[in-house]
């Protein structure tokens, strides 16, 4: 697996049985990255370019942490990489850093912020919460997932957030309910007030959080994860409708005002290669039979 590639995996940790954290040696990225930005990983010569949010970084050690869920063919392959092995390509940092970092300190100190993390979306929330604490600001954080097995980074988050609220769809851990149920509980029953929500997770979750916060009148920032190719503004694959404008998530985002995002369009676009992705998996399992039409139908 490892040819003479330079982006060495210095640490691998499995957070759940399908979610992994890796520290990767990439000094140029580590030196200049900030919370909110992402990298693109290409595992080997024939692999896809996979965008992943920066979960943490160590400027001195020159490493960047990524967290990924092994879902499809590429992320399943990524899960097979072990410590000491290396990726062929690791590019970044891409996209804009979180706007919190560039906000006037005075303004920031007045904001009551609630982070809402869904599933593997906890990973991109974590560095922002950490940055806030390290710069002297307290924030609250909701972490939601299907069940207990998908809750990640809980201990780390507790180190930096003032309050961490866990919620699971099936009630196997923490509150029972989705993140919106939890937000409602905090706002309506516990009398919490927030000026800003930062929600990162599956698009469907971000969509519903935005519907709720719009009702509540709370400004909401989301981090969009559309299909990408280059990540530098060259292909337009990542385009989204924000308000009345078309934006490229990789260079204009990935964070946007959630109340302006056209989520329905974005979710449809995310499905674009699903059947094609199925083909790749099929090809790997069954050999070179993917050209027949049968397989395509099969894959859908």
């Amino acid at each position, binding site marked *: 697996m490892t040819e003479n590639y330079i982006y060495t995996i210095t640490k691998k940790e499995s957070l759940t049985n399908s979610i992994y954290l890796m520290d990767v040696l990439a000094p*140029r*990225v580590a*030196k*200049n990255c900030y919370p909110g930005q992402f990298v693109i990983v*290409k595992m080997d010569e*024939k*692999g*896809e*370019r996979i965008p992943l949010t920066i979960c943490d970084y160590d400027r001195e050690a020159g490493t960047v942490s990524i967290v990924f869920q092994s879902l499809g*063919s*590429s992320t399943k392959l990524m899960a097979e990489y072990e410590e000491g092995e290396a990726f*062929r*390509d*690791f*590019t*970044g*940092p*891409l996209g804009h850093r979180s706007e919190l970092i560039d906000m006037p300190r005075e303004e920031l100190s007045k904001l009551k912020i609630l982070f809402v993390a869904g599933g593997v979306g906890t990973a991109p929330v974590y560095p922002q919460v950490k940055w806030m604490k390290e710069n002297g600001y307290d924030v609250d954080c909701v972490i939601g997932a299907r069940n207990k097995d998908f809750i990640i980074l809980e201990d780390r988050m507790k180190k930096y957030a003032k309050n961490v609220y866990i919620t699971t769809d099936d009630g196997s851990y923490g509150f029972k309910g989705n993140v919106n149920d939890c937000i409602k509980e905090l706002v309506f029953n516990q009398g919490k007030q927030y000026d800003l929500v930062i929600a990162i997770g599956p698009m469907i979750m971000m969509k519903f959080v935005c519907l709720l916060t719009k009702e509540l009148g709370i400004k909401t920032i989301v981090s969009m994860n559309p299909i990408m*190719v*280059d990540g*530098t*503004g*060259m*292909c*337009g*694959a990542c*385009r*989204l*409708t924000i308000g009345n404008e*078309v934006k490229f998530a990789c*260079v204009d985002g990935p964070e946007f005002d959630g109340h302006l995002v056209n989520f329905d*369009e974005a979710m*449809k*676009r995310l*499905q*674009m*290669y699903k059947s*094609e*992705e199925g*083909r*790749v998996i099929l*090809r790997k399992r069954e050999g*070179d039979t*993917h*050209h027949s039409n049968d397989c395509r139908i099969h894959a859908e």
Partner: protein
Amino acid sequence: MDVLKKVPVREQDPKVRATNFSEVCYGYNLEEAQAEASRCIQCKNPKCVSGCPVSIDIPGFIKEIGNGDVEAAFKVIGKYSALPAVCGRVCPQESQCEERCIRGIKGEAVSIGKLERFAADWAREHNIAPEMPELTNGIKVAVIGSGPAGLTCAGDLAKMGYDVTIFEALHEPGGVLVYGIPEFRLPKDTVVRTEIENVKALGVKIETNVIIGKSITIDELMEEEGFQAVFIGSGAGLPKFMGIPGENANGVFSANEYLTRNNLMKAFDAEYDTPIIAGTKVAVVGGGNVAMDAARTALRLGAQVYIVYRRSEAELPARVEEVHHAKEEGIIFKLLTNPVEILVNDNGWVSGMRCIEMELGEPDASGRRRPIEKKDSEFVLELDTVIMSLGTSPNPLISSTTKGLEINRHKCIVADETTGLTSREGVFAGGDAVTGAATVILAMGAGKAAAKGIDEYLKAKNN
């Protein structure tokens, strides 16, 4: 042999090549090349040279081919161009060197491009590479972007003894030569990679995966990493869209995305993991080289393909050879036609494109006749894929992160034509980043001029 005519070049049969990604044109063999070389009358005052943006000594190298000394021919070209196998293939020769060739007055011009390509291919096949310069001065120069402008500038500077590093955002060097122009016109592993290796052989270092403006800024390169001058050859990579309804539907791509998936990411090759939606009925909107490349790629992936262009055939900006090849392969041209709306089905996928017929009116500012809509001429093309090929503009990543770098209203970097100098001291630029989307050889010309400009600047500074 008819001296008024070019020695014909062998090509893959259109029916066969429409189903594969192998190169369309086979090029000359030695015998054919020598016969073609004999058509050059070795003008004392060769007009062809003035048509070449890098002023290659054309009669000089053709003479060596005529003599059968191909290595000598390659060395003559090498003095002027670092990418002859590329230019011989993709230069618009018919409007440059060959347009001015004296032979063209009474017959067909000498096939300068095909001869240049022959010399370069021959050198590659015989493992002849340029030699490392003997003297190095240790002065560090950074080059941003590894397209033709960057490679040429880097190669020339290395020959002058500079310590040059190219920074490239993507995972492979080559710029448009790798991600844009398809395999069937410009083979990647053989032709492009070899010419890049030749630039490396001059001592140029290439660092991929570095995005200037994100991974590191120009200011940091100069202040922290000791680069005394910087050349920006970052191209014009930002795709334009039309802004019509339905353009964000599934199945609508920019030509850049479609071509990148297929060229850089090799989606056509089952060994690679890249997915591509080939489409079964595809419309490519636009009429330039990029549109032809996207159309011919879709065709090879098995689609029925239309080119939708709002002016007439005479105005097609693509090279004549490419239009000719596209037609031979079975691309359907819908000329004088403009899209109005992309129709979308319930799943969010393209189902068709509503178009309107156009007619040509008075010439506009560009001198071309302006297309005007014909009343009540709307019709619907049934499609599942639309590829937008409407041109590109320079990416603002660098200009927005470099202090004091002036750009014009087209977002192009302002640079002096003869030296490449920008509004920032020590920072030079050239190629598509300065001119907007143009050609390989113009980008190379700009890279060359800037190398000279940088050398003069650094000599003055370090004295």
